[in-house]
């Protein structure tokens, strides 16, 4: 495994909730990232936001890590939950509440 993959693994395993996104939680640079931040905020769950625009190695590395082609990407307890479409759907159908209950 390359350095970047090891580094990503460490961040994802050591934080309960990690969002790889474009921009920061305070200033998202993409509508899809902003939507996921808004959803997470509605559960009042603290999360680690990582701005992939600040580092192209992270941007490409996380896509490889999850085998998922787009950003944002949400990880909870070390597991890849999904991108904007999936997080929105899980928010609507109530499953996200159960997923995030694990970290409260």
């Amino acid at each position: 495994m390359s350095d970047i993959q090891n580094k990503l693994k460490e961040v994802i395993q050591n934080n309960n909730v990690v969002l790889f996104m474009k921009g920061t939680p305070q200033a998202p640079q993409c509508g899809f990232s902003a939507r996921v931040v808004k959803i997470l905020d509605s559960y009042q769950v603290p999360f680690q936001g990582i701005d992939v625009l600040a580092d192209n190695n992270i941007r490409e590395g996380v896509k490889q890590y999850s085998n998922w082609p787009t950003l944002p990407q949400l990880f909870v307890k070390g597991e890849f939950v999904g991108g904007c479409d999936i997080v929105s759907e899980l928010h609507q159908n109530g499953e996200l509440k159960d997923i995030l209950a694990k970290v409260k």
Partner: protein
Amino acid sequence: MFNPQRIQQTIQATLPLAQVQVVDLVGDNNHFEVTVIAKEFEGKSMVAQHQMINEIFRPYLNSGELHALSLKTYTPQKWEQRNSI
């Protein structure tokens, strides 16, 4: 060039019994919202369900023939639940 009918046929070539609904979001044959209801999704996480569909389109996404798919996936049971709310 893709159109809604070809999207549906491409999915059903792999998942013959899947129900597929396709919406051309902006009318340019390039941004599609695709809803797939398939028994094959049972027991799989939503990420795994989307991966199955993305895998079918990977060659076209990689070549740029298709820009992006916005996906919604349901097992027949989830679909029924969703529509009974």
